[in-house]
């Protein structure tokens, strides 16, 4: 699934960082799982706005996953404020899993 962004270069770095944030139950990273919808960079205010979802609303691991996304982006982009926005519109579905993710789950 393509992630929407206003800065392709920095988005690539951000996604590389988020490849190390895993859904602990599934064991797959949040990028390949298709949880990341959009990452925008507000250079004037040094803000990063990451819009993402969870596999299910009120997911018991939700808080942990969003905390990990925040800390990972914070570690990679020092000086920026990280805002993680959760959205359930559209809701996550299995079609959002990347091909790499499907291969991982199919093993």
């Amino acid at each position, binding site marked *: 699934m393509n992630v929407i962004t206003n800065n392709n270069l920095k988005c690539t770095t951000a996604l590389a960082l988020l490849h190390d944030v895993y859904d602990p139950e599934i064991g797959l990273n949040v990028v390949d799982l298709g949880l990341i919808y959009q990452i925008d960079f507000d250079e004037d205010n040094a803000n990063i706005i990451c819009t993402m979802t969870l*596999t299910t*609303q*009120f997911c*018991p691991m939700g*808080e942990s996953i969003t905390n*990990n996304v925040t800390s990972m982006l914070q570690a990679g982009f020092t000086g920026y404020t990280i805002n993680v926005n*959760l959205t359930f519109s559209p809701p996550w579905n*299995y079609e959002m*899993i990347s091909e790499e993710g499907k291969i991982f789950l199919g093993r």
Partner: protein
Amino acid sequence: MFITGINNTTTKTTTWKVVLPFYLYAALSFLAATILLFISSNKFLIHYFQPNTLAITHIMALGWGTMIILGASHQLVPVIVEGKLYSNILAYISFILAGIGIPLLVYSLYIFSFGATAKIGGSLILTALLAFVINLALSITQSKSQNIHATFVFTSTLWLFITAFLGVLLVFNFSSSVLSQDSVYYLPLHAHLGIIGWFLLLIIGVGSRLIPMFLISKYVNEKLLRIIYYLINISLLSFIVIFFIPAFNKYLFVCYTILFIGIMLFLYYCIQAHKQRIRKKVDEQMKISLLSVIMMLVPLLPLFIIIFLLTFSAQSNIHLLLLYGFLIFFGWITAIILGMTFKTLPFIVWNKVYHIQSANGKTPNPKDLFNNQLFIAMSICYLCGIFSFVLGILFALILLLQIGAALLIATAFLYNYNVAKILLHKPIKL
């Protein structure tokens, strides 16, 4: 635009402080029940209505099955009803009252005394369940989403409350006649309300949500789940009618056939969810949970033979009745709990310990919080124990009953060890 709107709904779930005491209580109850089963093995050759079997049944139904389901429900309510748990305080009240009431009731059953202790115990349990019903009802009411899973869970909780209410009436009926017949007469009704109304409906409601979720399955079939919901409730309601109008006894077969169709449709639902799963590798915990779906069918065999005998020869078979009860509590319900404990508890504790740390390979995986080798050993002990005890009941062999019970004690020890290992987990950095 891909994103149609931002929803800032928080995803905070029920605090671990509410949930973990239920798990600990249930684990210890399971151990107590298996020890009592071993001590009472010889009683399984006589009759089902006696102090030891009543005590074991109630430890299993209340201390083990109901307590762990209440604990897991407090955690899973947000996932099922898609809304927050209404009140943590009501959850604590449920735990404390049930936690005190269950041993009082079980002890009274064990010594076969239905005085003040039994009445207080039963009333405490009933109040605990009332607190849970209110908590669940208010959680569903404040949730924006209504779904079939929530309907299953809420209906099952109402049946649980009715079961407990009848149970308390039966306790009072032993000392003062509050019912038209003696308490023993109402036992089949009490048992059916609890087994079908509470356990079966709840397990289907929660299972139909969690099984596809854990398997990451494409399969969704709300219409089928609605049909299953109506079939099971119609079956139970018709059983109640037949119970109070004995002239309709000949239709008991119809009532169980409806139930059988409902269960078979749920089996079909699980098979489809399994077939259409994205996640191909199924872990051991899910395998045991899926096995419990098949084990749901096993008690139906002795049940149908019992109904056949009752309908056509008016005879009841003590061994088959004992077998049916054993397969329900130690077979089906225990199998699903053994599997689901290790699909839920490690995540609750992991969330408690590591939720503010970065995942990035610096923390252990939730699955590393328990010993998987011991989990497999537990599963083997469990299956061998069930098999041996079932043969012991069927062939009236005390040695097989004792071997089966001993293996179930080993199962309970291994289960308790792994539960304690998870609960006592301290943060480690890798």
